[in-house]
């Protein structure tokens, strides 16, 4: 689109995306006794030593930082699972693998605060980084297939990835829509004689191209 100004920053800052992810429930094992907490966000039950309990991520991090608990890493954050996911992502032409919507934020917070609670932490971390790279690369390659769609379905794309891609994808889709619209009006008049439109209006999985300066560094 000629004459565009710099791509403006996305609607949500990375901090806000993290804020939204912090409500995800994770499992911790407290090492002290505490009465139930009646938060506005909900009630979180008695804390008894060695009894696992589910709490929001922000609460878990707060407790961990004060040395009051240890994390039980979520099932998907294991070397086995991540290796599988990475293999599948690396398959050419594959779709995005199923990962928790906020996997980037959860992984990042756990690496920052709970290194000792994750077995094989370095391996896990490098796997997550690799997975992110592969997915972002996939997002890039697939943007080219946009061509005048009215909706784009994104399967298994995570929150942070959506946020990264949002400004560019939005402007691209808007541009296509603007240029397609006058054609649509002409379409109605000459539908039978017209060639079928090259652009397929079915929503499909679209990877997006990312300008490199928008890469969110891990």
């Amino acid at each position, binding site marked *: 689109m000629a004459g565009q100004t710099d791509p403006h920053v996305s609607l949500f800052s990375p901090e806000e995306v993290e804020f939204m992810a912090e409500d995800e429930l994770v499992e911790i094992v407290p090492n002290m006794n505490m009465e139930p907490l009646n938060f506005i966000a909900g*009630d979180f039950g008695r804390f008894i030593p060695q009894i696992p309990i589910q709490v929001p991520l922000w609460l878990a991090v*707060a407790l961990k930082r004060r040395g009051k608990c240890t994390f039980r890493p979520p099932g998907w954050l294991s070397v086995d699972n991540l290796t599988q996911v990475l293999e599948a992502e690396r398959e050419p032409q594959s779709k995005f693998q199923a990962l928790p919507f906020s996997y980037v934020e959860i992984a990042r917070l756990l690496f920052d605060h709970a290194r000792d609670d994750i077995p094989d932490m370095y391996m896990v971390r490098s796997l997550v980084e690799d997975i992110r790279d592969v997915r972002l690369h996939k997002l890039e390659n697939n943007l080219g297939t946009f061509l005048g769609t009215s909706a784009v379905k994104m399967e298994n*794309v995570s929150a942070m990835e959506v946020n990264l891609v949002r400004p560019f994808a*939005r402007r691209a889709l808007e541009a296509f829509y603007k240029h397609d619209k006058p054609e649509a009006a002409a379409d109605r008049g000459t539908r039978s004689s017209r060639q079928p439109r090259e652009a397929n209006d079915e929503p499909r999985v679209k990877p997006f191209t990312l300008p490199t300066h928008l890469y969110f560094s891990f």
Partner: protein
Amino acid sequence: MASSSDMGSADFESLSSTSDVELLKRAWRNEKAAPEILPYEGDLVERAKGQIELVEENIEAYVENGIDPLVVSLYQMDLDRTQFLLRSYLRVRLLKIEKFMFHSLKSEEAESRLSEQEKVFARRCADDLAKHFEESVLRKLPENYQSVLKQSLISEVDDMVPEPHLDTFVACRSNSHFTLNLYEEGESTQTEEMYRGDLYFIRYKIVKGAIESGKMDLI
């Protein structure tokens, strides 16, 4: 109405019991991502305000009674989070009001989306801005061009009023299973099955109804 003691699961798949914080988060997210002002969630804001005040009093009481500072700081964190959501929600709305000042006062429908205080704010803003324009520029223009709302007296519509860009594309996620008409009324009806948890980039106009009825969320 969800009470504050519901154990609201943050996982978007649980629709059964949603805490006020969840609802507030949803309202905040939708408001941020939408190009126009959404209807004001008056009840939710009142409830949230009430709970925040209650917790503030509790925290003061805890500090006085010498409750474990850890517990106090945790309550404070929860309070901060909720306050942030509420404040950001109201601020995003104010930003949009400022942006589309004249537009939101033009029609009954647009005005009905604002709260009473927002309406007062919008009117004052619009009056001040109109006065400012008149005094600094418009009085000095030839007669036909003196309106704040129209480019000239020949214009049929208020073309000096910026309107929200409803054709913008938004990222959204479906909360339930339903079919969505991909085109507006009168154009070809192509529908798409939306299953719970599907993510889409779609034109805002098309999903507007679904968002207001709660079937989809903006993300």
